[in-house]
């Protein structure tokens, strides 16, 4: 591994200043489960590493009127355990549980998964259907943006120099709301998604988001519109599943071909929507 200076800021402001001062030569370390692989392979060799896990408060997960706030240093395992008490957020718990292994989830963070901006990130489709917000702190000031507006492309976010994601907030959802995250990978566990699909339904709307089939996670807007007009039932679920594939623009890669991904999107959408309307697949 290359040589670097290691920083352990005690406040977010201190971390922001470090990041702004060193610019491209600084990287944030949270769980480190992606970062250290890139270091070891020499993909990136920043001169400064800023560990944000020692900043008081970032390791906090809590519920308030605003919803559930997941601090940037909270591990995936802690997040999943916290969510166990909230059936309406199971789509996120399932997405987290599908990430890598127990060892990785003990270190990795939801905020880190978001900030890496991988099109295959499992937690992102779940956060998108839950309308999550990203809290950003920076030298120039703070901002809070919808997760759908956070990504600029594969591996790219809208964060500017000196900015840090301090937490992810999931707004309140009715206890009767329900969601599901389905993932197809080459092996059942410890693998990246060929397609990841999150669906969430409450009394008003059904939302569907897709991972690994576009440069960023995308919403299945045509399918959502159909369900908004006609409601979710066993018949509309099948029609909406077909429309879901229209929102996917996948590439062929080592994990699956474009054609396979398109077929998978429809299958996973059908399974998810039927599960949400309580119907069995015929």
């Amino acid at each position, binding site marked *: 591994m290359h040589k670097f200076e290691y920083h352990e800021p005690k406040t977010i402001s201190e971390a922001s200043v470090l990041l702004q001062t060193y610019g491209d030569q600084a990287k944030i*370390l949270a769980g*480190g489960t992606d970062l250290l692989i890139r270091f070891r392979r020499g993909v990136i060799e920043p001169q400064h590493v800023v560990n944000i*896990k020692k900043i008081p408060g970032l390791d906090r997960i809590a519920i308030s009127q605003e919803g559930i706030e997941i601090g940037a240093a909270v591990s995936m395992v802690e997040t999943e355990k916290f969510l166990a008490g909230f059936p309406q957020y199971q789509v996120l718990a399932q997405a987290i549980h599908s990430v890598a292994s127990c060892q990785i989830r003990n*270190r990795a963070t939801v905020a880190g998964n978001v900030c890496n901006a991988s099109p295959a990130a499992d937690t992102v489709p779940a956060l998108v259907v839950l309308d999550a917000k990203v809290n950003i702190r920076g030298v120039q000031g703070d901002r809070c943006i919808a997760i759908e507006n956070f990504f600029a492309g594969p591996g790219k976010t809208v964060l500017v120099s000196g900015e840090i994601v301090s937490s992810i907030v999931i707004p309140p959802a009715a206890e009767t709301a329900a969601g599901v995250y389905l993932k197809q990978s080459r092996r059942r566990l410890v693998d990246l998604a060929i397609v990841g699909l999150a669906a969430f339904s409450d009394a008003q709307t059904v939302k569907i988001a897709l991972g690994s089939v576009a440069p960023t996670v995308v919403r299945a807007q045509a399918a959502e519109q159909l369900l908004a007009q006609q409601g979710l039932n066993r018949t509309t679920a099948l029609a909406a599943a077909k429309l879901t594939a229209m929102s996917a623009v996948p590439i062929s890669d080592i994990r699956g071909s474009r054609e396979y991904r398109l077929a998978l999107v429809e299958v996973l959408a059908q399974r998810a929507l039927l599960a949400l309307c309580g119907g069995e697949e015929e």
Partner: protein
Amino acid sequence: MMTSKAITMKVNGRDERLTVDPNRTLLSVLREDLELTGAKPGCEAGECGACTVLVDGRPVNSCMILAVEMDGTDILTIEGLGGEGALDEMQQAFVDHFALQCGYCTPGMILMGKALLAENPCPSEDEVKEFISGNLCRCTGYENIVRAILAVAARNRG
């Protein structure tokens, strides 16, 4: 330039004071500075689990953690299991069920068994399989590994 850092961590019940360069992993410090070679380097990408140790009771890949981050933590490696000349019950179960062949994955597998039963004393077979899904056995001896862990769990059931 790189500034090394003084850290203190408890390893297998003993306080260790070390000065480490920030670009070294926990795995390399355990193996090279503390001569605890039970945790193994494998894929070094978080996929094989050969480097698994418990940090504050939780299993992690020690090849994916910087040693400087470990200041103030409590670490258990395979060398910390059992007593003087005596095996831990999980180690004994691995022996009894022939749950090791080449032995490379064994320290990680045994620690995963310990971690699982600490949080779930009576797991199902599927729960065991899922829990050790981040640990590869290159001899493919999974059946006996699962049996060994379930045997210890069965004793918990009484």
